[in-house]
């Protein structure tokens, strides 16, 4: 198994998993505590429309995905301000529209869409070196912005109304958080694909949340768990020659469901100690 490390593609896969895990740990923690998992799902599926558009226009499909994901994030933030209560229905509509648009664009584009399957389900074993640099840059950018805004992000995700009373401009903070979520989603498309993005964004954070007493613990825990999940998933997918994205998600889900019953025991242990 160790000989796999001799292959550049394998090392790249591990590095890509590492970078994506950090971005997911940071952003996923806020997504989970703010209960925005379905919103993140909507953004990622809307991004499929962008991939179709990319094929249609003959540009890099990922660039199309990035444009649509960020556009959808911004639009969602705006709609959220105007009509909070209908957000759930709207997410469903955006979700379906994005997928449908993607399929239509790919259908009317002459010829064959070569990497379509890998955009849907991801293929971390095919991440080229140039993309790694871009991912490193994005991850560093996401971490920097979150570090600067950290006290305000926590205040807004905990209690938006009180944040407004304290003049923290929660709407602006939420726009930034949603745009960062959009960026993270685009990064994840390479790793696990559109269909499974929500899993990597939410499962490590949801697992870490069971045992976290503060946002800092949650972010660090989610990042570490993400690294463990992606690394384990990549090894397993290599060893058994199975799809990497799906393997990473199944590993994450197994740990999450396995940890659920442990939560109570750990809390009780803490209270008695």
């Amino acid at each position, binding site marked *: 198994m160790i000989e796999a490390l001799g292959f550049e593609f394998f090392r790249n896969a591990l590095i890509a998993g590492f970078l994506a895990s950090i971005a997911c740990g940071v952003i996923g923690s806020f997504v989970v505590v703010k209960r925005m998992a379905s919103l993140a799902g909507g953004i990622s599926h809307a991004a499929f429309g962008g991939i179709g558009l990319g094929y249609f226009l003959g540009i890099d499909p990922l660039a199309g995905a990035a444009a649509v994901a960020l556009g959808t994030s911004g639009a969602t933030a705006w709609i959220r301000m105007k009509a909070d209560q209908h957000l759930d229905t709207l997410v469903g509509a955006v979700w379906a529209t994005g997928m449908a648009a993607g399929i239509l664009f790919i259908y009317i584009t002459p010829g064959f869409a070569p990497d379509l399957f890998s955009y849907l389900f991801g293929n971390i074993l095919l991440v080229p070196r140039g993309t790694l640099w871009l991912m490193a840059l994005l991850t560093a950018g996401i971490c920097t912005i979150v570090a*600067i805004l950290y006290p305000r992000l926590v205040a807004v995700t905990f209690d938006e109304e*009180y944040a407004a*009373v304290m*003049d*923290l401009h929660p709407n602006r903070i939420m726009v930034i958080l949603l745009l960062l979520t959009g960026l993270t989603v685009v990064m994840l498309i390479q790793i696990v694909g559109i269909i499974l993005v929500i899993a990597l964004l939410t499962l490590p954070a949801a697992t870490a949340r069971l045992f976290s*007493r503060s946002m800092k613990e*949650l972010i660090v825990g989610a990042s570490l768990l993400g690294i463990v999940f992606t690394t384990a998933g990549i090894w397993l997918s290599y060893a058994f020659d199975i799809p990497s994205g799906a393997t990473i998600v199944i590993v994450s889900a197994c740990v999450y469901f396995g940890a659920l019953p442990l939560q109570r025991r750990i*809390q009780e242990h803490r*209270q008695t100690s």
Partner: protein
Amino acid sequence: MGGVSMKPVIEVEHLNLSQNGNFVLEDINLTIREHEFHAIIGPNGGGKTTLLKVILGLIRPDSGMVRVMDGTPDEMRSHLGYVPQFRTFDFQFPISVQDMVVSGRLGRLKGPFRRFTHEDTDAADEAMETMQITHLKNRPIHDISGGERQRAIIARALAGKPSVLLLDEPTVYVDGPTAVRFYDILSQLRESITIVLVTHDISALSPDVTHISCVNRRLFTHGDNQITDDMLAGAYPCPVELIAHGVPHRVITEHDNRVFGGRK
């Protein structure tokens, strides 16, 4: 007496607000002066919470004037401490009591980073001391009791050192004995700040309340702490049931002398 000479901290004049085509608040006039303990009572859905949010500047009225300490709510909001309804909180959020309380200082910090200083942690410590939750400071909010959570929410508001404390239904999730202790704390606070308390539960009113207003779309008050039949008849759709409990008169008359003479 009764603090007529005191400076007004909140003034509302001819305020109208409609939502979805219905009047929520109609021609509201209200003056709250320094050191009042002002209870705003009324039935659920009567517009009490909305009135608080208008005072906080979170909701814009259609017409009328709102002044907070001689400024607009937006300008003077940092002087207001707000205790929202308990049910609006997600107590599963991973945050300790101390971190939650100190977050009440964020409104006073400036610049892009907004990191807390010693002054902020000291203010948070003082607020936790006042609300008697210092021993819980490192506990996450999901494993403390309902009454302790309520005190943590108030401590967060106090950490910002407000001149006026606005509380929305603070006793709903608190049991009887805890509510009594809770009002003791509020009575102490009254010596340094003005308190505005919104509740639908008039049986839970503290005897130390100095002024009472009844809100059900319109506002009814006599400018003192009396609840009279005409106020209730105006504000409550079915006043008979409430008066049958013997509540309104008991709350006030017994403590009349204390409020007007005994307490400063």
